[in-house]
């Protein structure tokens, strides 16, 4: 019997296809820019130069934090076969509980920040565990439940900031009061980068990589994501693996929520101001990295660049938000399509015995 030829594509080829895809996306959006009377080349050069400036780069890194945390959590969920679309809601729950501890809980001041982190993680995990339990116990489709729970979470936040938690000193704006300074996360001078969370985000990438590759729980998660039948055959508790992976996924999204309220806003506010879709963009971060936790740092950086670039185009070029979305969308679709070409050539046969 002769050895089967290695059919995996080398990394260089993969990167090259991705580069081509990005160029294609830029080409498509160029047409839209031109239609709006903006020279696309000028727009692109502006994006690059501004992003490389101190201010621009710092904005990119600020947005990297929640994208990275959501994306990496989603990698864990996706590895277990749970199509968690709910990072957005899990993130908002983290932010909500952080706010509760920051403003309303009577605890010693020194324990307030650690408690915020703890409860933020737990709230995200708890929110993710509801659909996970529904899936494990009743086989309810998690795509639907996680998505629906995003709406619930965002309505909850909006209710709180308009209602019971509305700040006394905020002139009727939908804000809570500002958090005490003691729970503000430190930032790098002159920027909005709350570096402790950034550090955690980067560190988590390596931790999750380690978890999935080197630990028994990680192995069980990976096997469960491939096949329930095979997992049970191997004596793996499939339900438990799913619950653990969703808890991790939700916890990391919750942490992203903590970072946003304690690092940037210092208060809870309207849901779409806390997260401009980081939880959804996290899905793309996870996929672009091909579910590799370490590589997700790069894909998160790329997404952050698109997010920051989008803001820039609105402000500097006066483009409507819709055009920015077209820009982001065409690049991402090109990238996702390119995966189909970059994928190795998998044979269609399957040996199946009766």
């Amino acid at each position, binding site marked *: 019997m002769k050895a089967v030829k290695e059919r995996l594509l080398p990394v260089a080829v993969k990167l090259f296809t991705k580069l081509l895809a990005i160029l294609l996306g830029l080409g498509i959006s160029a047409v839209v820019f031109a239609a709006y009377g903006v020279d696309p080349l000028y727009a692109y050069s502006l994006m690059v130069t501004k992003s490389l400036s101190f201010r621009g780069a710092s904005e990119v890194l600020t947005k990297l934090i929640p994208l990275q945390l959501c994306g990496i959590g989603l990698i864990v969920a996706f590895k277990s076969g749970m199509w968690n679309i709910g990072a957005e809601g899990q993130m908002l729950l983290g932010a909500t509980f952080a706010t509760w501890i920051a403003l309303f809980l009577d605890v010693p001041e020194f324990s307030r920040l650690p408690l915020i982190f703890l409860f933020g993680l737990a709230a995200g995990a708890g929110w993710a565990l509801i659909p996970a339990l529904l899936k494990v116990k009743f086989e309810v489709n998690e795509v639907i439940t996680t998505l629906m729970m995003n709406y619930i979470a965002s309505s909850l936040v909006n209710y709180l900031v308009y209602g019971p938690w509305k700040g006394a000193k905020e002139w009727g704006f939908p804000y809570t009061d500002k958090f005490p300074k003691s729970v503000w996360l430190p930032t790098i001078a002159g920027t909005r980068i709350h570096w402790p969370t950034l550090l955690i985000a980067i560190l988590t990438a390596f931790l999750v990589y380690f978890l999935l590759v080197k630990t028994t729980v990680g192995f069980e998660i990976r096997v469960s994501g*491939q096949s329930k*039948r095979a997992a049970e055959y191997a004596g793996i508790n499939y339900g438990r693996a799913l619950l653990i992976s969703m808890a991790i996924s939700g916890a990391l999204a919750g942490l992203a929520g903590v970072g946003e309220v304690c690092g940037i806003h210092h208060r809870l506010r309207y849901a779409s101001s806390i997260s401009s879709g980081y939880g959804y963009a996290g899905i793309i971060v996870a996929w672009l990295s091909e579910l590799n936790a370490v590589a997700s740092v790069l894909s998160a950086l790329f997404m952050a660049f698109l997010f920051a670039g989008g803001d820039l185009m609105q402000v500097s070029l006066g483009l409507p938000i819709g055009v920015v979305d077209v820009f982001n969308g065409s690049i991402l679709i090109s990238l996702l399509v390119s995966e189909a070409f970059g994928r190795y050539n998998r044979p269609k046969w399957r040996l199946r015995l009766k």
Partner: protein
Amino acid sequence: MTLVRMVGITKRFPGVLANDSVNFELRSGEVHGLLGENGAGKTTLMNILYGIYRPDEGEIYVDDRRVRIRSPRDAIRLGIGRVPQFPELVDKLSVAENLAVLFPENIMSRKRLEEIRSLAEKYGLPINVDAMVYELSLGERQRVEVVKALLRGARILILDEPTTVLTPKEVDTLFEALKKMRNEGKGIIFVSHKLSEVLSITDRVTVLRRGKVVATLETADTDEEELTRLMVGRRIVQRYERKKVPPGEEVLRVENVYVLNDKGGEAVRGISFTVRRGEIFGIAGVAGNGQKELIEAIAGLRKVEKGRIIVGGEEIRTPYQFRKYASHIPDDRMGMGVLPSLSVLDNLSLTLYRRFSRMGMIDMDDLRRFAEKLVERYKIVTPSLGAPAWQLSGGNIARLILARETAMGCRLLIAVHPTFGLDVASTDEVRRTLLRLRDKTAILLVSEDLDEILQLSDRIGVMYRGRFIGVLEADEADPEKVGLMMGGVAVESG
């Protein structure tokens, strides 16, 4: 009058001669039984007649005219109908909607419905055309399939193991209908393993063995013993050399177990047996007699409705408990035995990773070294340990599973069709491995391969319709006796 004549049909598949100059004849007004062990070539022959395969050599005549059947469409046009073993209807549509495809423009009219009803009534196969298919039992679905074939104007009806899905009462109804069709001059080919049914319904029988026709007989002139002998042939099973091992402690105990199949029917109906260390207990039987459900129940993968399964002294309720004591070589290799997208290393770890983990951490260096040894010792041909398992050939997948499940030792080993699809050398290797392990392990072997069961087993239980029709000691078992029992004939042991 001759409806069908197949002359000198030969069909080769890579490495297998499935049909070897087969001659087969179906007359008008007869039920013609087609008998043979698994792999004897019955299904291939019927697939050729129905236009699914084309023969490499040979000719087919319908109504004494030479025909070429290139597709089922051709077959249907010639009046050939097939009732598949498992009904192939659209679950989420009604019976009427399923039958509408038979009419021009797929339109079902009241008149057509009337036609269907009267046709079904005529053969005593009443069907409820308004019912949704998923509401029907398998027997009722089969009835729809029969009616469907008749509506297409079939004069030649192929029934592939039609009684597998039927209750005894439904079998009677079907047989009555078949008799009516026969009396009208239709020809029916009845493919089956079940000797009693073949004897009761057919007029003639053709027996296939290893792709060849060994005999065509008048049913009235033959009996179960003769048919079995023709089916299994005069063969001497060379038993493997084996050490005498004093029987050790009891490792597996199955007590009066009942298990349901996926459709909710009773697949296992009150089975009891034990397996001790130092013995191989073989389960023989034609597929679909409850072996799959029994094994899944033992492995903790299927609910035990009644009775108990005890492995290593512990009552098994979950796969995890089972895994503490036992290994399992499953028959569904790609769907259960390996994870095609994961690496060879991951696949070798699939059931062993717990033994390499300390405090939740897997000792990857240790595991990798062990995996390298397995790849070498079991001659698994793979580009690398990191290559995904789907890149491996079927034989190497089988070796990978064998390596993983046998390398570290365990108290109970379940092996299901462990040599299916393997070449001669690999088959021999697998069988020797099982015998070697027998010293320290209790082994439960499930196989449809009579030779394998006879060569390896110390005791043999023959499953028929969810029960043991008999349990034989190795020295009192021979191919004919086991073959008879597989066909549903109780043979007293001893």
